């Protein structure tokens, strides 16, 4: 939906205006009444949209900070193998991120750099950097259930989706919002719809569900183990489960996190991707 307020014009305001105009003594007042009505209704509708957007944005920024640095473990379980990776991450805003594998030893040094819409992988074994083509954005990142797109496009959720509050109230005794994110018509996104539950009290996300174009659940993410890290309350563990493979999952556990550290855009360079000297 491109214009949140437009629906009100067409559905509600018009019948009222017609009713008003039938009453002759109100006729002169009608324009003012309409104007008042519009002024009253339109902003409230806009603000519902803005509020939802603002909350989702705040949740997003809360977890990310202006900049961040941390260590995380990623445990991937598939039908054929399980592996655990440890990695160091740096991020600046939503535009820049650098992720470097620390373990297992075979993959240590492998790194991913995200800069805007672009993504590079550094492969220490062959000492080469590869820029990922657009056609591979939907492919798995490091064998996990995250896609390359998740890393690149995550930042654009606020811009690419219309956000509405689908439910507001108590779930299991906790006051929550449930947001429904629908892609804007012009947005080039992979999901048909995203639903996200956020606790009202501390703005902590509880789960997110991703639906495909046909409206079928494709995957879900649950957020767990809320604790204070780097001075903020964050979900220290995220579990992603593909809907079509119920036995598989990817779990990300933050081991340490710092926020709002001194980092600037020049840190996220191809040179840094290839060499971790001085990057801590």
């Amino acid at each position, binding site marked *: 939906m491109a214009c949140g307020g437009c629906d009100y014009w067409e559905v509600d305001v018009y019948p009222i205006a017609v009713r008003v105009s039938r009453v002759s003594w109100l006729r002169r007042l009608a324009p003012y009444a309409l104007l008042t009505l519009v002024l009253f209704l339109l902003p409230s509708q806009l603000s519902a949209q803005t509020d939802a957007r603002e909350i989702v944005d705040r949740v997003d920024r809360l977890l990310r900070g202006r900049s961040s640095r941390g260590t995380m473990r990623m445990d*991937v379980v*598939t*039908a*054929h*193998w*399980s*592996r655990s990776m440890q990695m160091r991450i740096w991020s600046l805003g939503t535009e820049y991120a650098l992720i470097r594998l620390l373990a*297992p030893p*075979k*993959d240590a040094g*492998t790194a991913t750099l995200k800069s805007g819409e672009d993504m590079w*992988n550094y*492969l220490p*074994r*062959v000492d*080469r950097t*590869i*820029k*990922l*083509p657009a*056609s*591979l954005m939907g492919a*798995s990142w*490091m*064998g996990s259930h995250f896609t390359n797109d998740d890393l690149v496009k995550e930042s654009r959720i606020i811009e690419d989706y219309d956000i509405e509050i689908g439910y507001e109230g108590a779930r299991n005794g906790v006051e929550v919002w449930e947001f429904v994110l629908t892609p804007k018509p012009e947005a080039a996104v992979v999901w048909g719809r995203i639903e996200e539950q956020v606790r009202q009290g501390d703005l902590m996300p509880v789960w997110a569900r991703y639906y495909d174009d046909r409206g079928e659940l494709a995957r879900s993410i649950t957020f767990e183990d809320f604790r204070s890290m780097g001075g903020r309350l964050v979900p220290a563990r995220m579990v992603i489960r593909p809907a079509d493979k119920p036995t598989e999952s990817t779990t990300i556990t933050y081991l340490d996190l710092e926020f709002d550290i001194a980092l600037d855009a020049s840190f996220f360079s191809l040179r840094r991707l290839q060499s971790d000297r001085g990057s801590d």
Partner: protein
Amino acid sequence: MAARPWWRIGWRNLGRNRRRSLITIAALAVGYFSVVLLVGWWDGVVVEMINNGTGILSGQLQVHSAAYLPDRNVYETIGGPDGTDVTAIIAGVTADPAVEGAAPRVYGGGLVSFGNATTAAAFLGIDPELEPRVSRLMDALSSGRPPARGTNEILVGVEMARILGVEPGAEVVVVAPAVDGSLGNDLFVVSGVFTSGLADLDRTFALLPIDALQALMVLDPGRVHEIAAAVPDPWDAPAAATRLHSALGATDGALAVESWTDLRPELVEYAQLSQSFQWVLLVIVFGMAIFGVANTMLMATFERRHEFALLLALGAAPRGIVWSVVVEAIALGAIGLLVGAAVTGPVLVWWHNAPPDLSWLVGDFTMAGALVRPVLRVEYPWSMAVQSALALFATAALAALYPAMRAARVPPADTLSGR
């Protein structure tokens, strides 16, 4: 009156108007020649299409783990995670009398990168010695040579080479997710570039030595996805698949043996469609010939109505007259067939062995997803040659029946008195 004189009368009548007889014979001969040659050409196109559709890459017969197709799941190797004795299976497949050769294959997917260019690729791990017995992809090199076993070499399609900007000798990065979850990556040297003419192959396929791809994907040497086999006569492949199914002990459901007719059903449908088209052609050509022959015979019998009237007046049976005319037509057919076969045979042999190549005129084209060269190679259409011969006789006899019956009903007295 016995039948013998009617035969002689029918035969001798051919010589009465030789020009007309020759023209009719020529019409039948050309009809026969056209049908047999067109069908031979069309069979040639279908065989070319099947050979290209199966011979460039897939082979006419394949052995997989039963769970491998259609998703081509990289974990589903023959014999499961423990692999199998690849040499034994290849020996088993090659032992079948219809199979000419067999080769093991490993499939993977990933990236090929050179400089700033990166492209997604489908990797095919092949045994450089065995593979040429099954597929022709490695024959279609536009530069360089096939990858050698035991080396990190890669053979890429011409379009991929263009996208990456590589030539033989270039060092590229190959990245492929391994079956242990790690990201296999290594440097490979481009050994050559192939041009298959099929856009998908030329853009996305890259051939690596099977051992190199197995190492990249952390697959043991005993783990392969496919054994592909060549069956020189593609129509023998389904029966060979059935034989191998029991010979390889695939009855427990772990192995799948499939012929190209299972893997490429659209090619089978196309072949069947073209066979029904052959019948349409036969009916049209001889349908036209019927009227030509009937016209000749009507003229001939009209001219001879005095003779028929005299014979009838002398007590000849009308059945005999019918017989003489039909015999004449069958004799026409026989000569037409002899002439037709005498012309068709050498042309078939010629164009089977040295087909006219029209590539200079129209270039290569693809049909049902298979590359077809516009080479007018004919296959020997044995069954159609026999069917056409029968159709030719039926045409001649049917076309003579009406004029013969009219001749037998000539009123003797009126005709002889000139009324």
